[in-house]
């Protein structure tokens, strides 16, 4: 059993781009589960369903949940309360990493930390997992925290203080973005449109709907093919 934990970004990205069917196809070719936490569900269904502009997108995501493509943590017998508690712990650590202007900076929120919390729970259960996330802060914090320090200090034109020791445990998380999922779908002939141009178009589509991928990385993906 393997699990992909979805943050809101990739789901919204696929929905806005009309590519949710890719998720469904990927799920069929995958020996495991696609899981979304309650906090993420709020961001992709419960809140946008009340915003006319995003209502249809939210309903499409709800349809994926109804079909069992996206499942709640309870599908793995994981209690939502455990995730909430672990999320709070991780959020407390992450939001005490950067100190600037006389205060600790709240850099991440409960949806993102719920994905990390679920990953920790799955690790305890020896279930291999990956987090699909498009926003950059959580990924940078885990994979290269010094870059986050640089982003913030460059932006505010001042040095910021960091507590590096606090976030050592974040380095164990693994991440992909909607961009890499689209690449994988292409390699598995699941894009629905044939040809190299389709790959290029789909990669750019993810970028222009918020996947934190650089143009350089897209060029590298095109060359990998």
């Amino acid at each position, binding site marked *: 059993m*393997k699990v992909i934990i979805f943050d*809101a*970004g990739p789901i*919204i*990205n696929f929905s806005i781009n009309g590519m949710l069917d890719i998720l469904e196809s990927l799920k069929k*070719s995958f020996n495991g589960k696609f899981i979304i936490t309650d906090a993420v569900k709020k*961001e992709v269904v419960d*809140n*946008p369903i009340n*915003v006319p*502009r*995003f209502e249809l997108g939210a309903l499409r995501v709800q349809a994926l949940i109804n079909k069992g493509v996206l499942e709640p943590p309870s599908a793995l017998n994981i209690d939502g309360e455990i995730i909430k508690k672990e999320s709070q712990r991780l959020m407390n650590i992450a939001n005490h990493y*950067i100190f*600037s*202007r*006389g*205060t600790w*900076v*709240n*850099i*991440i*929120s*409960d*949806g*993102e930390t719920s994905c990390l919390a679920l990953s920790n729970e799955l690790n305890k259960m020896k279930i291999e997992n*990956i987090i699909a996330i*498009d*926003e*950059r*802060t959580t990924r*940078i914090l885990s994979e*290269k925290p010094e*870059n*986050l320090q*640089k*982003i*913030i200090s460059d*932006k*505010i*034109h001042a040095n910021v203080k960091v507590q590096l020791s606090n976030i050592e445990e974040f380095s164990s998380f693994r*991440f*992909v973005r909607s961009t*890499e*999922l689209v*690449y*994988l779908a292409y*390699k598995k002939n699941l894009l629905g449109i044939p040809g190299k141009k389709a790959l290029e178009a789909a990669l750019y589509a993810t*970028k*222009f*709907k*918020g*996947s*934190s*991928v*650089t*143009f*350089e*990385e897209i060029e*590298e993906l095109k060359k*990998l093919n």
Partner: protein
Amino acid sequence: MDKEEVQHTITMLKETKQSLLTNNSLKLLELSNQKIHSASCVQDIESITLTIIIYSLAKFIERRNILKIKHWNNFVKKMNLLLDLAVSALEKDNSKAYQDYILKAKSSLESMSPSLKQYAKEIIRNACINKASHIYKHGISMEQTAKLLGITQWELLEYTGLTKAADTNQNRTMNEKSRIKMLVEFFE
């Protein structure tokens, strides 16, 4: 707010007032970014609201001839009075009163004219999205930023996707070949 920040805010409010009187939308756009650092790090409601107000004022000025806003001069007078009161509150070190005047200024913007209520709402919403994208660029996560500005991640993702937020060296945290290899092996 420390003394330096208070002084900076007072100067900024005075410049906002002057720019509003002279219909200087470019200066207002510039001023609207000056509180972004504080809005990103301290995440205080006053800084966030102020940056939204100033950006919205710039947008109203840009379109005031097209919109033919009735009683524009009265609105400017009312807004500037609130900005004066906010300055006075800061000078007296009364942060509660300062917050109240800033929130009143936002309400005044929202209720500028009954015929423009919907349009005002749209301008303020766009101001929130624009400022959210700046805060996201400061290294704050997508969800945290959306929550601070009271918008959805759907709006923020669409907007930031069209900016250069992702195209920085710091965004690259792993070799792309390695990430794909990890994902392909994970799917096997």
